[in-house]
């Protein structure tokens, strides 16, 4: 149905499944070769290189008969490095301090300061979020919000700030939930959150489960592009036309995804999100700690009450029962005892106990048993005790001479009067902790229908429990002769019959009296525990993955899931040796992560990342197609340098910050950007969308430096988004732009205008368009005007006169002093502008005119470009 790619059928030889050493990949293409260990080349201008990469860089220029541009000035250098590492301009104080520090270590000290700043992660985290096609909505037809995805975004930022080794960075994103078990426990939440890389894969269609194959495609394709620089998605419909990736390879990875539980984002078909993963974040732990203490105490109270009750075991054992009568009741049958009145006469001592026990047979359900039990004093006051009449629905005085017992083990008083039963008028019920065993009473003088039962007027019934019987005990208030009349009847349609037994229990009554307060205490403790459990603080949720039942995928012919072909085992692509996921391994994500970082793909993984880092500092990668290291991508401009850097990267323990230090300290990076004849100049670059916005917020003094967290999305319970009325919002904030809410089906208007990342697919390189609508933004957008006004007001206080204010603004925006020409230009401008607004009074007039001048500065190329 969906034909995705111009990948025509091509025969790609299947490579032998070899045990391949780390880093070595079969196949002849450069990117799949093990890293070379190129010697550092000699250069003619031996004084120029500052670092080993400079030798590679210069050697190539010398080969071409060119030479590098001279070093740039220190102001430019600080502005360049500050934008490169933090996405923000240097402050005037930072610039002054740097210029004042003439020591040889001044630059590296500045680099260290910037690398240590939280702003570093906000800049470089954004670079990775581009690659990871991060978005705050799912992208299906209703574009539902992903309210928990922000944790992944923030984790990325933190990972860069922490200099998490890149191999771990990769492993966590693919298999962090599995690696969490390796410890330490305080990393478990972050590792789980890191799998947001897979979880934020785009969802498709009206019913995302029906189009899940497209989501898997997104996850596979992004995994390939981000970590391996390979366009694996091509192999969904056909063997890759150009790279050695077969459809079999694709579905080998597909099985790994199919064996992974992606969180359900919600969609039109069924809006409620589910399958998110609970995690213990620091703030979550702060809330949980006091609760966990309460829960522990409540657990202990329940255990103590149980132990107290267990201490009565000896007393119960001493009360040896003597059977008076017993029988079996078939389903629906009734039994009357005694058969003749004489047999029911017996003499009892005061306090002696009679116990009638009902025992379930194969099934305990539908075993409600009617008990019509009357005991009459034959002498004395001729008192009479009737079971149905002896209970009142008054929880305070429940049972009179009668007691209900759970006889699964030692008899246990059922003292919990359950008011829920009163919802059926006339019904009363006593039970223990569980719903059964229980005693049901109809206190009315007419029949009551209760569930499947019809309770006769003024009647009682017992129901045994799942593990054993129920008993009713009568503790005699008198000594002397009594007569018993008992009718036991199976009143629950569908039961399988019960056994009944009437016994004398000498001494039981006294034991039950001792038990009574303990049972009440136990019920109280259980109630408290349940109440505590209900107050469990909501767990923090991550939009993250978990393991699912391991399955192998079947090839989908031409990418069509309704046309399944042969099953393919879960496996690594043949390109990397094609090893199969062991049967016992689960989904195989952990194996995939290890293959990428420690196995056959390691060297490619390192090349792809150092190329991104090079691109981040030099504008263009050594490979200019950073998501495509395959045969259709561009070959590296300097293969030896790429391998040298990749080798250094691995040797440094995959330290991203170490690579920044190496590249930034190079003479190549410190070149001037002005073009001089054949000299190779540093490439000037435009600020990114985020840098533009963040710069204006910073200089105006309105930037909120606190990290963003969750977006103010509408509550999930109210979601009813459809393609007719999809989720759509733009949330304003003064935080750094990396924290802006990014929607999949509607581009953020500002980010779209200035070439922000495409949230639908991995963005390896930002374009730098120059279009008139951007100029309109600088001329007329309310944000530009408000930031200019805020800065104008701030300058009013910050400097004593207009020249000093211009000086300050120029240093903040451009990182240099204003020229005499600029002072003259501004003076004329301010005079003319002020003359045009004569109605305003001071200081409003000054602020307005200054704001106009600042808008001019905001629109200049010097602000927008980094030399």
């Amino acid at each position, binding site marked *: 149905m969906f034909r995705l790619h111009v990948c025509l059928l091509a025969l790609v030889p299947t490579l032998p499944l070899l045990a391949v050493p780390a880093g070595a990949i079969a196949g002849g293409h450069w990117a799949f070769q093990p890293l070379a260990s190129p010697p550092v080349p000699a250069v003619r201008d031996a004084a120029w290189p500052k670092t080993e990469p400079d030798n590679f860089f210069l050697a190539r220029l010398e080969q071409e008969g060119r030479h590098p541009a001279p070093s740039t000035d220190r102001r430019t250098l600080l502005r360049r490095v500050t934008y490169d590492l933090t996405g923000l301009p240097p402050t005037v104080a930072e610039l002054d301090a740097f210029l004042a520090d003439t020591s040889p270590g001044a630059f590296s000290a500045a680099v260290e300061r910037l690398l240590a700043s939280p702003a570093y992660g906000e800049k470089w985290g954004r670079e990775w979020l581009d690659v990871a096609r991060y978005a705050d909505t799912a992208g299906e037809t209703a574009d539902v919000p992903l309210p928990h995805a922000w944790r992944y975004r923030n984790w990325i930022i933190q990972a860069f700030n922490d200099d998490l080794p890149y191999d771990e960075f990769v492993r966590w994103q693919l298999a962090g939930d599995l690696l969490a078990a390796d410890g330490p426990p305080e990393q478990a939440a972050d590792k789980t959150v890191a799998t947001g890389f897979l979880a934020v894969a785009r969802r498709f269609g009206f019913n995302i489960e029906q189009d899940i194959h*497209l989501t898997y495609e997104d996850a596979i394709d992004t995994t390939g592009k981000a970590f391996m620089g390979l366009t694996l998605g091509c192999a969904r419909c056909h063997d890759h036309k150009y790279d050695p990736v077969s459809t079999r390879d694709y579905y080998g990875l597909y099985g790994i995804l199919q064996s992974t539980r992606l969180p359900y984002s919600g969609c039109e078909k069924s809006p409620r999100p589910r399958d998110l993963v609970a995690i213990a974040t620091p703030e979550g732990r702060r809330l949980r700690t006091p609760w966990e203490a309460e829960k522990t105490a409540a657990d202990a109270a329940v255990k103590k009450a149980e132990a107290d009750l267990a201490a009565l075991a000896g007393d119960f054992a001493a009360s040896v029962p003597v059977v008076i009568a017993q029988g079996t009741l078939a389903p629906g049958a009734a039994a009357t005892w005694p058969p003749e009145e004489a047999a029911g006469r017996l003499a009892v001592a005061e306090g002696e106990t009679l116990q009638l026990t009902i025992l379930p047979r194969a099934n305990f359900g539908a075993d409600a048993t009617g008990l019509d039990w009357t005991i009459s004093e034959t002498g004395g006051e001729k008192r009479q005790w009737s079971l149905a009449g002896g209970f009142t629905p008054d929880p305070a005085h429940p049972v009179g001479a009668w007691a209900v017992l759970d006889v699964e083990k030692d008899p246990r008083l059922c003292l919990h009067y359950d008011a829920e039963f009163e919802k059926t008028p006339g019904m009363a019920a006593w039970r223990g902790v569980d719903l059964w065993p229980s005693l049901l009473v109809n206190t009315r003088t007419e029949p009551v229908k209760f569930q499947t039962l019809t309770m006769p007027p003024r009647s009682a019934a017992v129901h045994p429990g799942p593990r054993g019987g129920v008993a009713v005990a009568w503790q005699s208030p008198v000594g002397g002769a009594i007569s018993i009349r008992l009718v036991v009847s199976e009143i629950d349609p569908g039961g399988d019959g019960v056994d009944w037994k009437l016994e004398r229990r000498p001494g039981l009554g006294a034991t039950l009296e001792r038990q009574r307060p303990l049972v009440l205490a136990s019920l109280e403790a259980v109630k408290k525990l349940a109440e505590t459990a209900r107050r469990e603080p909501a767990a923090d949720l991550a939009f993250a993955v978990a393991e699912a039942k391991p399955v192998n995928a079947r090839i989908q012919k031409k990418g069509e899931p309704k046309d399944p072909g042969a099953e393919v085992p879960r496996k690594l692509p043949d390109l990397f040796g094609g090893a199969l996921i062991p049967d016992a391994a689960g989904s195989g994500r952990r194996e995939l992560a290890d293959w990428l970082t420690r196995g056959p793909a390691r060297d490619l993984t390192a090349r792809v990342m150092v190329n991104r880092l090079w691109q981040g500092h030099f504008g263009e990668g050594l490979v200019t197609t950073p998501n495509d290291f395959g045969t259709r991508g561009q070959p590296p401009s300097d293969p030896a340098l790429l391998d040298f850097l990749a080798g250094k990267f691995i040797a440094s323990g995959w330290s991203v910050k170490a690579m920044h230090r190496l590249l930034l300290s190079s003479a190549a990076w410190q070149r001037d950007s002005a073009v001089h004849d054949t000299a190779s100049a540093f490439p000037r670059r435009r600020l990114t969308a985020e840098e533009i916005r963040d710069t204006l917020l910073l200089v105006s003094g309105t930037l909120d430096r606190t990290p963003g967290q969750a977006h103010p999305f509408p509550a999930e319970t109210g979601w009813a988004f459809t393609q007719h009325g999809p989720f759509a919002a733009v949330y304003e904030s003064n935080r750094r732009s990396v924290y802006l809410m990014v929607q999949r089906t509607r581009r953020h208007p500002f980010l779209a205008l200035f070439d922000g990342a495409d949230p639908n697919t991995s963005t390896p390189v930002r374009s*730098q368009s120059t279009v008139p609508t951007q100029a309109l933004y600088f001329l007329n957008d309310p944000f530009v005007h408000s930031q200019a006004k805020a800065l104008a007001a701030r300058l009013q206080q910050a400097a004593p006169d207009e020249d000093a204010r211009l000086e300050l603004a120029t240093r903040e925006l451009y990182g240099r002093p204003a020229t005499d020409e600029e002072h003259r230009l501004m003076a004329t401008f301010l005079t003319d502008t002020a003359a045009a607004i004569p109605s305003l009074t001071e200081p409003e007039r000054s602020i307005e005119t200054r704001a106009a*001048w600042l808008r001019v500065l905001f629109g200049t190329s010097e602000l927008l470009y980094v030399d």
Partner: protein
Amino acid sequence: MVAGSSLFPGLVSQLLAGLPAGRAHFAPRAKRIIFLFMSGGVSHIDTWDPKPRLAADHGKEVKLNHPEIENRPGYERIFLKRPGWKFEKHGQCGTEVSELFPHMAGCVDDIALIRSMHTSHSNHYNATLGMHTGSFAFARPSLGSWVSYGLGSENANMPSFIVLAPKTPYAGSQVWASDFLPAAHQGTLVVPGAEPVANIAPRTPRSQQERELAAMAALNRGHLATRSGDSVLEARLRSFETAFGMQMEVPEVFDFAKESDATLGLYGLQRGQTTGFGWQCLAARRLVERGVRCVELIDTGSSGNWDSHGNMQEHVPLAKNVDQPIAGLLRDLKSRGLLEDTLVVWTTEFGRTPFNNTPDNSGREHHNWAFSSWLAGAGVKPGIVHGETDEYGVRVATDAVHVHDFHATILHLMGLNHEQLTFRHSGRDYRLTDVEGNVVQAVLA
């Protein structure tokens, strides 16, 4: 106009930065395109595709393995449902059109009607995305972006691709996105109302803005002087000149004060009216007059549209909203000679079912197996009907035209070979028509 501006002496605006010069693959028949998109799925059998047998066999049970009824409770049985409107022959050519479109019916001699359209998805979102980008799931560049990329702009003061839409359509801004094509080719959204283009209204008096632009130009020239040869910086200077011009020209485009009463009447417009599809259609004519390469008009948004599940009578006001304005646009373009080099396209994302779960159900469901679209103007054979559906309008019977074929034909008319108009992205060459598409020769003049 910018040419007369004193702000940028010596700078002659040539073209929008980032836009390639026109590079048609062969002589184009159409220089510009107006793409009329009816949102929600217009019923073909009630508008352009007469089905007398459907009327005759009303209530007859049919068995179809249709995507919209599969596993749908209440749709175990389906029955034919007769068209709700009468058809009559019109024009010299005698093409039959229903009474829903009395004005457009009067234009059939200028139209190549395609009754054999079909598409790959029966969901609004996917079908709308497909009709605009050729992709039914993934974000890809829009047709308008491809045309802009392929041919460039004719007017430096205007974006080359403009979308006039009162509301957001299905699939959102993906419908006019340039995706991986350079951002200069993305559609610029015009929403009828106070500020039709974002930031087009100056926030300062013109004299003050000129002062600011002059100061900025002076600073930028100083900056450029020490960075000579940086064409991007030069382009940026020009972009401010263009933006300044746009502030004048864009509002001027949308100011209909100089249009005659007769012209306004053609579109069914009242003088001073600034909304409605008639407004959009007249704005489209004024935009193509000014060299805008691609103008898309979307009649409604993702709700309150042609998606008449509950009641086909909802088609009546929607038809009335577009009928006279579109006919007026065609007549106006023709009378000004613009129809000779302007291609006008009318379409929707899919048709509606000729059946329902009861014959008396007053609505119709989504139907991607068959629908009708038309082309008119430059290079199009006028007064013809291409293709036909079966006796009930359920399936295409002859000369099927898939969305990819439709796109290939449109590009062909614009002088672009759909197989050669490619862009290298992520290691492969993408095109609007993916790996499909055949030019429909029969509709070419």
